[in-house]
């Protein structure tokens, strides 16, 4: 059956914006707001992933993986591997993984002062100050 049903994908139904289903991967009933320190950013396809260390109320630290947009688009906006250096403080709002792991989508990414991480940084404009 698996092989059969794998044949049945209607290509035209690929959503315009999503490489895969948000609802399958993340849980809309688990919104998260995380403040953390960038450990590394993976410039990989089909989505970038930002790893951040988030301090828990009990003093322990959890490493969260945050899913971001496609590297191609970010590159065209003037971002490069130095645009988000380890140690940068960021705030992430998104939704946690359905399986309960410390993964979330990065719906809104800001610096602690509220500036958007990836906005206003096309090659013609000044990159955000870190």
């Amino acid at each position, binding site marked *: 059956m698996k092989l059969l049903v794998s044949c049945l994908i*209607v*290509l035209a139904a690929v959503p315009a914006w999503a490489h895969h289903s948000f609802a399958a991967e993340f849980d809309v009933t688990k919104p998260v707001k995380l403040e953390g320190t960038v450990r590394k950013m993976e410039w990989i396809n089909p989505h970038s*992933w930002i790893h951040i260390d988030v301090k828990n109320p009990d003093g322990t630290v959890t490493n969260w993986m945050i899913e971001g947009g496609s590297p191609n688009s970010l590159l*065209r906006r003037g971002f490069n591997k130095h645009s988000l250096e380890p140690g940068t403080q960021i705030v992430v709002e998104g939704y946690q993984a*359905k*399986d309960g792991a410390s993964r979330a989508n990065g719906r809104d990414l800001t610096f602690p002062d509220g500036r958007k991480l990836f906005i206003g940084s096309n090659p013609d404009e000044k990159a955000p100050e870190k």
Partner: protein
Amino acid sequence: MDWRFRNSLILLAGLASVAFGAPPGAPPATTAERSPRAADGKPDLEGYWSNGSVTPLERPKELGNKAFFTPEEAGQYAKQELSKPEPPGPDTDTHYNLAQYGLDKSQMNIAANLRTSLITDPPDGQIPPMTPEAVQRNSDRAAARKGHEFDGPENRGLAEQCILWGNEGPPMMPVGYNSNLQIVQGPGYVAILQEMIHDVRMIPTDHSPHLPSTIRQWFGDSRGHWEGDTLVVDTTNFTERTPFHGSSENLHVVERFRRVNADTILYQFTVDDPATWARPWSAEIPMTKIKGPIFEYACHEGNYGIVNSLSGARAEERKQQVAK
């Protein structure tokens, strides 16, 4: 000024200045002298192009038989489409604040287009009705898939598996972001690299015949030839796993590429599949020249998403098990 809107305004200025003397639906014939030539004397289609578009495939019903906008209407329509806010989350299937990642439409490169639909034939701008056979076939497909969508990676869509995306075709359709492609011409071949999602289609132009019908390929089997200044590409030998709007593996696609000016290729296609539609239908998409390069999109290199989706499905199953 917000740079995204600035880009849109530049684009709209372009629309106004470039477009509206000659509707793309009826571009002036380009003489051999005026058409740029490649080294072998053939018309030069080489370079980086965007087939991004805000024009819908099918004409919005409320426009009836109106096939073309006026220049003012087209400008207004493009402005409206490019500045549309993302759909509100989280109930929609939207991952992100799209603008943050450069994924919103205002960042697309689009060619001017007065058409109200990409479909040029039938004249009503709509895909012809499906045959009863095709309706049944597609309904059987959907029924077989239902309930097994997350059984394993091979049950996920070809796009999610990073095998290919539906926009690649043929026929090639605009895609939501990075709607970019590169055309390279060489002796006996034309190659098309699509940024999303990394595939190169090799099109022999040496008058060789199609592959035997027993050999089927993801992108079918394309063969090209020149008719005057137009590259005509004929594709057959599709698989049942790559339906285009519900088509069968016997889909027949004819594409036409013509460089109508230095910055524009008019891309037209006709699809025919008697097992799916009562009649062939045609569409056209003007492609605009862009600055390269095409960025690598090694789609599966970090495809954590498919693992996470399956893992999410297993977690859901456990939850339901506990609830029983």
